[in-house]
């Protein structure tokens, strides 16, 4: 936000509030917020790095604001994109028409690690694959959003969307009186309805839903418990479930109880030692058999990784055209696949302008931000790309938007991204908002919580207003990818 050229309308109120609030009070509120999070126990676990394993993600008290009109366009784009992703998954595990039509190279799909042969010919209950999708976006200008990454496996972070709002409501109740902000609190209810909607046909009218967690040592364990609690369902570990005659039961004090829908927060490989990795200790033997028999729904469906693979990502706009016959509303960041010779040559001669990422990486590890990198780092990536071209993709840097943020020196612009959560059951639902992550270091583009990123509350305004909020910092680069 550039104070000198005036703050755009939707931020005006926040700007007034910030100016009227002494720095000490902001600091006090910030400490209160931290205490609040510590008390409710919203921590994420980082093991194996030393220090306190139960950490807090820094919370910034200045909200990120999205205008109504902007959200409408955005959510329309998200619906469209998730419909296409679901159609793509149903197609590649079914008739494979998009491959036959030559719109996506067959080898790119069929030889991809994310493609699960076990899912070929399996139709998930309700035909839905990616029930919960987290689409990572950045804004580069008025009405200009780019998708950085799709997450069709087990996207996390929604508990922060809910708890950040809760914290803001407690800390700054008066701010909420001055704005009409779309509520996010019905997310758990919508999630439960989405999950119930995809229960197997033979399930009872009120199907039993459970969240499957890898356990307390998982970094998102808090979120698993939080969502279970909010939905009033059990959070189960692999050992709590058993399969008999291809039916899934959970062990309760009153004996075995049939489970109809499992919102699993375990990766595919660990779901079922009989079907995938035999050394999985957190999975449920026989689960895939029960799934194939249509006795249980898994959300998200196994095999969704083929849709959010970084090498498949460049083809998502093509999916929108192919399956929906529409032009994509949301833009993709142009992506070069180093596997292709033409792309590779371009990447190698433009390393100083590009962001290079591992095709399989997540969490912001193992990437090169060309404009910020040293000559040595660029040379290192040059060699790595030549050695294993298939492992790398590259993207141009974008003028990424920023949002005012409380930092040591006062209030300063910091880069933000946005992860809205899209629910697909009988219909597509999107709670207006999402998780805003902020790179707390000056000039940094990496927003991952594992790399010192923080979060903000995300306000979608319900009023019509001239609305843009965050400024674009020129000359700044983008595209740190996400993946909590």
């Amino acid at each position, binding site marked *: 936000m550039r104070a000198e050229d005036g703050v755009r309308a939707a931020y005006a109120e926040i700007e007034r509030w910030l100016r009227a609030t002494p720095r000490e009070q902001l600091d006090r509120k910030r400490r209160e917020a931290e205490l609040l999070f510590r008390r409710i126990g919203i921590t994420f676990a980082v093991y194996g790095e030393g220090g306190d394993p139960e950490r807090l993600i820094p919370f910034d008290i200045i909200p990120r604001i999205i205008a109504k009109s902007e959200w409408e366009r955005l959510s329309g784009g998200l619906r469209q994109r998730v419909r296409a992703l679901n159609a793509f998954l149903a197609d590649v595990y079914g008739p494979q028409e998009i491959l036959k039509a030559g719109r996506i190279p067959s080898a790119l799909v069929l030889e991809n690690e994310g493609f699960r042969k076990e899912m070929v010919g399996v139709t998930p209950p309700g035909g839905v694959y990616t029930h919960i999708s987290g689409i990572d976006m950045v804004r580069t200008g008025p009405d200009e959003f780019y998708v950085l990454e799709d997450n069709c496996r087990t996207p996390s972070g929604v508990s922060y969307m809910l708890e950040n709002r809760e914290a803001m409501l407690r800390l700054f109740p008066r701010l909420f009186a001055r704005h009409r902000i779309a509520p996010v609190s019905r997310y758990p209810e919508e999630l439960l309805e989405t999950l119930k909607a995809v229960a197997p046909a033979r399930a009872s009218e009120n199907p039993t839903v459970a969240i499957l967690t890898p356990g307390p040592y998982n970094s998102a364990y808090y979120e698993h418990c939080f969502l279970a609690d909010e939905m009033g369902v059990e959070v189960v570990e692999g050992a*709590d479930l058993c399969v008999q005659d291809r039916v899934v039961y959970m*062990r309760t004090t009153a*004996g075995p109880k049939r489970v109809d829908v499992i919102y699993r927060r375990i990766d595919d490989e660990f779901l079922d030692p009989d079907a995938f990795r035999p050394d999985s200790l957190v999975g449920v033997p026989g689960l895939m058999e029960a799934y194939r028999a249509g006795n249980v729904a898994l959300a998200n469906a196994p095999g969704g990784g083929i849709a959010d693979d970084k090498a498949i990502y460049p083809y998502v706009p093509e999916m929108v055209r192919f399956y929906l016959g529409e032009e994509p509303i949301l833009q993709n960041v142009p992506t070069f696949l180093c596997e292709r010779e033409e792309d590779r040559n371009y990447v190698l001669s433009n390393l100083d302008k590009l962001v290079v990422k591992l095709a399989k990486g997540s969490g912001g590890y193992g990437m090169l931000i060309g404009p910020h990198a040293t000559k040595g780092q660029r040379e290192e990536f040059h060699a790595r790309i030549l050695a294993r071209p298939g492992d790398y993709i590259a993207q141009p840097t974008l003028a990424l938007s920023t949002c005012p943020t409380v930092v040591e020196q006062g209030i300063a612009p910091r880069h933000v991204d946005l992860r809205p959560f899209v629910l697909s059951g009988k219909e597509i639902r999107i709670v207006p908002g999402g998780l805003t992550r902020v790179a707390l270091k000056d000039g940094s583009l990496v927003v991952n919580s594992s790399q010192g990123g923080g979060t903000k509350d995300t306000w979608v305004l319900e009023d019509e207003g001239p609305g843009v909020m965050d400024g674009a910092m020129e000359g700044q680069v983008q595209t740190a990818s996400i993946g909590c």
Partner: protein
Amino acid sequence: MLSRTAENLFWLARYAERAGNTARGIAVAFRMAAISARLGDEGAEWRALLTASGGDAGFYRKYEAPTAEAAIHWLVFDPDNASSILACFEAARRNARSVRTALTVDMWEALNDSWNHLRNLAPDATEGENLIDFLGWVRERVTLFNGAANETMLRNEPWRFVHLGTMLERADNTARLLDVKHALFAPGVEGAVDYVQWQAVLRSVSAMRSYQWVYRERLSGRRIAELMILRPELPRSLAACHGAVADTLEAIGIGQGGRFGECHRIAGLLKAQLRYGRIEDVFAQGLHEFLTDMITRTAALGGEIEAFYIRH
């Protein structure tokens, strides 16, 4: 309720109670050792307590002799001793963390704060005169946890498994505390030293005053045994604890529409025996034999509860 949740609640209550009981045991031994030192056999008290806590084989693998220092270290800090105060709080917190949402905030904070305090304990916290303060602190923390559970938990199945764990563990502990000193209560034993030792045993179950209120006469070994075994008014007596265990199991069974099993039968039998038993018969059988039998049956009951509700 999920079986695992029941297991975590049951065991977190057991471990919390056990931490308090270990503290009670150390306090008695500490007092008695001071008395016995004058008679020249200080080690006897610690030896007896180590036997009673059920982990003496592990102790002798690590330490040569049951000196006060070794025994206190083993019982307070040693991670190899599953009943050490530190290990109990750690296990209680671990169980609590797995069922965070089944607990109330007050319960969680009572455990979590205790654990944080223990992690950062000053090195001399259990030395010399500090020991008694430390043991008092442990008992306070356990009382706080029990109070939080009692006052804040909904009275449904999760509460019942917590209560079940507390009461079963307490029954086991009272039997063990009494058994360590069973020789003190045999008919005909009386003397100045015994009198002080009787007081120490009563204090360990917070029952010095209670004795006076119930009997209104001078201490006698027989009456102390009766109070701690058969009197339902004393909250830590075997009768009170097993009465609560049986009633709680009954309530769980009724809550599930009349689902009963072997654990209900054993619990009912123990309750009836303690309710209608006479102290003469206990002594006729032999106090030590009676208490050993109680400890064995309490353990068996714990196993049956797990078999019926948790590991089916």
